[in-house]
């Protein structure tokens, strides 16, 4: 899922300074799973903003709403019913959801309440880590199911580099060396011969480097 981190309250207060009313919009998708922008977090943030503004002597009225998802038009309908009464929307969805709201509610400035970070997994309750960089050209079959783009700090395709020590990356002893993981997994699978192959130069044009991307399924288009 997409993992995001809440922005510092001070930063959000600066963004909403001009408004005395605001919608705080959450999403029941990814940001709920990573406890950043679900119904609960919307409640906490709205409360914190009200307190802060009350202390400043400029009270803030908030409308809390949590949509099923912010990245599908149909799910934005509940927002349509309330949006005219408020001058701006503070969204806690991922960057995609925030932008979609901005496209669909053109009269309302959209403010991001979170920093969208990565595609990742729940390693344990309260801990989420990066797994995928959406490079558009998956090589997981060749690396034992472990991604060299996302999990190697240098995105090497023929790693590890000389800085790998004790299975950890040179940049941080808490970060696993992606290539050590790949080596261990291929060993477990009895596929170490895959490491003898030189992985060719990457086609980065399928990544964001080639420009904003699009996927179409003609058979689904109405």
């Amino acid at each position, binding site marked *: 899922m997409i993992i995001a981190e809440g922005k*510092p*309250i001070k930063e959000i207060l600066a963004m909403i300074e001009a408004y005395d009313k605001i919608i705080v919009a959450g999403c029941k998708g990814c940001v709920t799973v990573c406890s950043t922008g679900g119904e609960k977090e919307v409640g*906490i943030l709205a409360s*914190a903003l009200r307190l*802060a503004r*009350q202390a400043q002597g400029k009270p803030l009225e908030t409308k809390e709403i949590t949509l099923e998802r912010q990245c599908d038009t149909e799910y934005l309908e509940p927002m349509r019913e309330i949006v005219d009464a408020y001058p701006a929307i503070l969204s806690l969805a991922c960057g995609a959801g925030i932008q979609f709201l901005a496209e669909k509610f053109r009269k309302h400035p959209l403010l991001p309440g979170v920093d969208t970070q990565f595609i990742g997994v729940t390693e344990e309750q309260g801990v989420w880590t990066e797994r995928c960089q959406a490079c558009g050209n998956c090589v997981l079959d060749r690396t034992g199911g472990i991604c060299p783009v996302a999990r190697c700090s240098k995105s090497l395709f023929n790693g590890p580099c000389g800085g790998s020590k004790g299975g950890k990356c040179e940049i941080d002893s808490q970060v696993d060396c992606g290539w050590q993981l790949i080596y261990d997994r291929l060993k477990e699978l009895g596929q170490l011969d895959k490491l003898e192959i030189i992985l060719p130069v990457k086609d980065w044009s399928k990544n964001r480097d080639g420009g904003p991307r699009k996927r179409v399924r003609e058979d689904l288009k109405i």
Partner: protein
Amino acid sequence: MEKFEPIVIAFCCHYCAYTAADLAGTMRLQYPYNVRIIRLPCTGKVDIRHLLEVFEKGADGAYVAGCLEGDCHFLKGNFRAKKRVALAKQILEDAGIGGERLEMYNMSAAMGPRFAEVAREMTEKIRKLGPSPIKKNAERKAHSAERKEEQTAEHITQKV
């Protein structure tokens, strides 16, 4: 000029802190009436939203009182509460309310005197800090301010 009487909300777990409060009562120990107690089955039930809500409703200070660490009736509830209090303190700090207005305490059911001591300690601390910043711009008239605070206190103990 009236002396400022803070409103302090105490979230107390049934098994330890609330029982300690009872004991303080039985022992006829004096503690400030400023402290309004909310009984919970376990401090692990406290949510960050509750901790923020009491301040929104007009509390000047609050604390969560649970069992001694390692002795929680539900094993880890007080550890969860400790972490949530820590996060709520940070949020209150960032919001300009002041993280020091919220604290976590631990005590056993037998610690009646400790309950009273904590109640006195927190009340005095909040008194020194003054009214919650959300009130500083509210209009005050001597007797109507007092009445307003009384009503708010009742409201909090009923609703939360």
